[in-house]
């Protein structure tokens, strides 16, 4: 009965929808009229609530709102994508590259530390030096580092000459001796010939210069160009203690300067005990110019002798021999000092390494053990 009533209602609704009157459709179901009539009337009443029109403005506004929402979703997805998809791979990639660079560069730098000009790893060594300089902001430390690198150039040339390797090099140093076309520049024997371009009008002893030349098999660097340096240029703090030529003949290693021009630590004499392979410990001779308690002045350089082993009685004006090392800030730290009243080359030439053994980090395997020395001011 109920199913019949609902089916009859559906038929009536469809016919009313098609335009027939309520009475005509109810006449189709006379037995159900009493039940159908109120329901059908209610359906007609419900139809009055319907409005088929859709305001165009409302639709436009809704469309704009929807598309705006879609744009926001797109933006948020892009941001999310960047964070979740791009950020992590980028981070991983960056970390990986950093690790590779650090690990490989550490190995490369280590391997390149002993390389010489002409070696495959030599550019790595020089690049690493530039990187170190770039990351040192303190001017004093930077100067000390640069001076150390200049010293390394001398060591490299010394090694090239020792091994008789022909290689074009450039280095800076101070002319300390000129004899018949054979100059000594920061301990490097340099051959100056007619083909050597002297780019400065007058180059004389004690003048800081930059030398470009080729190391030769005769233990001498043949200069192609020599140019005087401007004040303020960096020079190696120390010169190589010696150079043993291919002929086995000893070369004198004499005066040198240290630091930035104009020099602040002049007239130091480096004994043969200090080898270029062990730059951490050095021994010098100099003249004590003043004493104020534990603060002494040696060759114009103020040094502290507090907690320093002093051998014998030392007075102002006396020649002393002292050992020590360069601190990270470039300052020379004295660890021992003793009278060197003889002050003569023959005395120092004795290469009394046993006395200085504690200062040169075992540099007793002095290749030029019989080298003489001059005081820096006088030259020969």
């Amino acid at each position, binding site marked *: 009965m109920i199913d019949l009533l*609902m089916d009859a209602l559906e038929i009536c609704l469809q016919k009313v929808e098609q335009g027939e009157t309520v009475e005509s459709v109810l006449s189709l179901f006379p037995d159900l009229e009493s039940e159908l009539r*109120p329901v*059908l009337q209610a359906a007609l*009443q*419900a139809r*009055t*609530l319907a409005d088929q029109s859709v305001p165009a403005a409302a639709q436009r506004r809704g469309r704009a709102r929807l598309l705006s929402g879609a744009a926001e979703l797109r933006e948020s997805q892009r941001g999310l994508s960047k964070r979740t998809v791009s950020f992590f791979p980028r981070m991983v990639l960056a970390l990986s590259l950093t690790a590779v660079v650090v690990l490989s560069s550490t190995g490369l730098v280590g391997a390149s530390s002993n390389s010489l000009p002409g070696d495959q790893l030599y550019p790595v060594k020089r690049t690493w030096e530039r990187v170190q300089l770039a990351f040192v902001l303190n001017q004093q430390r930077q100067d000390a580092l640069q001076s150390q690198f200049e010293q390394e150039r001398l060591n490299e040339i010394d090694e090239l000459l020792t091994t008789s390797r022909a290689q074009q090099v450039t280095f800076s140093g101070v002319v300390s001796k000129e004899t018949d076309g054979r100059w000594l520049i920061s301990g490097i024997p340099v051959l100056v010939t007619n083909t050597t371009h002297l780019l400065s009008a007058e180059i004389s002893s004690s003048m800081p210069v930059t030398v470009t030349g080729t190391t030769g098999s005769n233990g001498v660097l043949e200069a192609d160009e020599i140019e005087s340096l401007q004040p303020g240029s960096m020079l190696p703090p120390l010169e190589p203690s010696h150079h043993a030529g291919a002929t086995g003949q000893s070369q004198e290693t004499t005066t040198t300067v240290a630091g930035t021009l104009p020099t602040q630590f002049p007239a130091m004499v480096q004994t043969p005990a200090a080898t270029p392979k062990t730059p951490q410990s050095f021994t010098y001779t100099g003249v004590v110019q003043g004493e104020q308690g534990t603060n002494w002045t040696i060759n114009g350089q103020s040094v502290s002798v507090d907690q320093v082993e002093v051998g014998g009685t030392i007075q102002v004006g006396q020649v002393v021999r002292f050992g020590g090392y360069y601190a990270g800030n470039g300052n020379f730290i004295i660890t021992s000092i003793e009278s060197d009243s003889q002050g003569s080359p023959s005395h120092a030439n004795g290469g009394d390494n046993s006395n200085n053994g504690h200062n040169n980090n075992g540099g007793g395997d002095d290749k030029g053990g019989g080298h003489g020395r001059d005081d820096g001011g006088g030259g020969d």
Partner: protein
Amino acid sequence: MGRAIDVTGDVILGVNTLWMVYCVGRGVPIPMQNFNERQALDGLKNLDSQVIGAVYDRYFPEVYRYVRFRLGDEPTAEDIASDVFVRLLEAVQNRRGPQTNLKAWLLATASHAVVDHLRRVYRRATESLPEDLSDPDPAPAELFDEREQKRTVRQAYARLTSDQQHVLALRFSQGYSLEETASVMKKNVNAVKALQFRALAALQRNIEEMNDD
């Protein structure tokens, strides 16, 4: 050319993927006769503006009419109808959107939105249904009687259960067949018949009660 029939029984002629791609790629609005729900859902996932616009244009009138039938208030119907489409986008992005029957999902969501709206309205005692507001425009007696009657029907309709309101809105605001209504309501046809009958009977009772008052 393929033929596709959506679950509501609409015959969609000329569904052609290449044509859809061409339309979207060239910025040409998708022709209504070529509308395909599967592709539309894919476009919604991709937040394709062309597809979003096509879906909106196709279904907004139905959603709007449905909501307005339920509430009798045009501004609110506009807000809720447009909000339904925003919810659609969000749901599709969150993989909670419709899988097949887009229209059913939209109307069901519209129904939930209406219920939520009414719940908020009832919670605020100071707010009354729009039909209860006095008409600010003076009208002839015939128009006044008509409006009064309509207001009575509206109030009687508002007293129905949500399902009863839902079925009457689908049948009388959209002109959906029993089968379409059953598809949207996810019920079988007989259940819809019974629900509709009870809804109309209750509506008539409510109207009589209100007229007696």
